[in-house]
């Protein structure tokens, strides 16, 4: 069956809340019902029909065509099905998603995958700051699922992450894995300063090391561990490039000793 397509008419005048456009909320809706869904975030009402040309199809396979960093909350709390965005999106893409597959064929703004529970999110371009991180006041960030960023990511990737896996194929900003509670980060290229800042538990893998390592991480030597093989096998289907990081033994740094110190950073042995 053909996908349900939303084509952006023009750059929106205001930020749009796309959270109603997820498969389980669109199931069973008619074309007119879909066109009437409100997306505006200001006093000026904007509906789906105003912003998008809609081509009806299977709501389990949504396609959003057109690129704007004003498209917020794409795939918010999605449970199943697939959403493919052909272009950039705004903030909080895939926030609280608990299943299905979200593909952003472009760049994503900050807080993508924020509080994600399960499912997969792929961003072919760059991701903004606080990928997977919590919003202000929340205790934990990402809680499950897999996020793959094909290009670079901003600061604080995996902030307060509790479970799940984030793979960044490009470079990542400072404080990657800050305040991590658990989970796994694989950063293929150079990371910014102080990865694992105040992390309690969890695993960060740095394919090319980082600019500055915190002095509160303790060198535990170079090891070839079974666990990194299992991780490599898990990462490979999502990103063969990131899985190549595990080809040689890695140095294990334990930390952050400023807090609990049960986390770890793996980096190249040299």
């Amino acid at each position, binding site marked *: 069956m053909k996908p349900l397509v939303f084509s952006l008419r023009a750059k929106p005048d205001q930020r749009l809340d796309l959270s109603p456009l997820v498969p389980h909320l669109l199931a069973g809706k008619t074309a007119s019902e879909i066109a009437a869904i409100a997306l505006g975030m200001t006093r000026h009402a904007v509906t789906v029909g105003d912003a998008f040309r809609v081509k009806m199809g299977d709501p389990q396979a949504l396609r959003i065509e057109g690129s704007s960093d004003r498209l917020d909350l794409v795939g918010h709390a999605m449970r199943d099905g697939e959403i493919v965005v052909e272009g950039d999106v705004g903030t909080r893409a895939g926030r609280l998603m608990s299943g299905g597959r979200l593909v952003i064929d472009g760049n994503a703004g900050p807080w993508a995958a924020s509080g994600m529970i399960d499912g997969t999110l792929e961003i072919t371009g760059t991701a903004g700051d606080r990928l997977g991180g919590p919003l202000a006041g929340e205790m934990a960030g990402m809680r499950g699922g897999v996020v793959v960023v094909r290009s670079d990511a901003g600061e604080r990737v995996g902030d307060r992450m509790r479970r799940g896996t984030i793979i960044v194929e490009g470079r990542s900003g400072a404080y990657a894995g800050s305040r991590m509670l658990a989970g796994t980060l694989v950063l293929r290229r150079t990371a910014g300063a102080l990865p694992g800042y105040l992390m309690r538990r969890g695993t960060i893998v740095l394919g090319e090391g980082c600019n500055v390592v915190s002095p509160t991480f303790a060198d535990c030597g170079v090891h070839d561990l079974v*666990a990194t093989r299992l991780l490599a096998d898990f990462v490979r289907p999502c990103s063969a490039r990131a899985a190549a990081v595990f080809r040689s033994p890695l140095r294990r740094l334990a930390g952050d000793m400023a807090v609990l110190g049960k986390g770890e950073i793996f980096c190249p042995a040299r």
Partner: protein
Amino acid sequence: MRQLTSKGVRIDDTFAEAFGMRATALIITADEARWARQAAVTMTGFGTSVIGCGAETGIDRELTPKETPDGRPGVRVLLFAVSTSELQRQLQARVGQCVLTSPGSACYASLAGEEQLKLGDGLRYFGDGWQVSKRFGDKHYWRIPVMDGEFVCEATTGLTKTAVGGGNLLIMGKTATTTLAAAEAAVTAINAVPDAIMPFPGGIVRSGSKVGSKYKSVRASTNDAFCPTLRGAVATALDPDIGSVLEIVIDGLTADAVGNAMRAGIAAIVKLGPKRGAVRITAGNYGGKLGPHHFHLKDLLP
């Protein structure tokens, strides 16, 4: 008893009576196949009979690096017990004492079941707080720091409540040598059958037992009807040409696995023939009233 004959080997028209058991399967890996094998052999030691060992254990088969979760050589082992709680106790004790301790080992679940037994979930406490939990997709592992690196152990393993224990073949030959040759041929054939093990030494039992004894405190005693040296003194089950009897006991994850194993064993014994091997095959039962699974030899002929 009515008998059938297949290529000169007499096969009794009787059945093996088997019982329902609880079981699980594990994969043990190591850097080298011999160390995976060593961990598996140690872990399945003293696991011949639930009567005295708590569990019946054995190696199902060896696995190539491609067949294991971590890409290292491995061995699949099966554990059988009479209750879920006893199986859990045996699993914990055997993996904790024999696999955790073996150089370079790792341990994974090898059975999907609706109910789970604790594997790493129990052993993780050995890590004294330094254990690390990792979830990769739907897999959950524990990493426990040990002196040669880390012991990786899957958190849980599946439990089956429909396993079958006590499938058996009684192999009768003219001499001890030919009987053993037939039993060994059967063991080799059954080793190739998946999901089934033979828990006794090398797969063979020479001391088949009957229920009860003349002594009050003894629950099982020698099966005098099959002892060649008592042939004239008791109501013997042996023909005049039989000088030695060996038994193969089979436990399987399913009734089909036990049936397939018995079929493979009978085929191997028949193939060896009465001159070099066994002259007669029978099976042990309790009249059919105790065990729910009956494996009739006539249905398992080659």
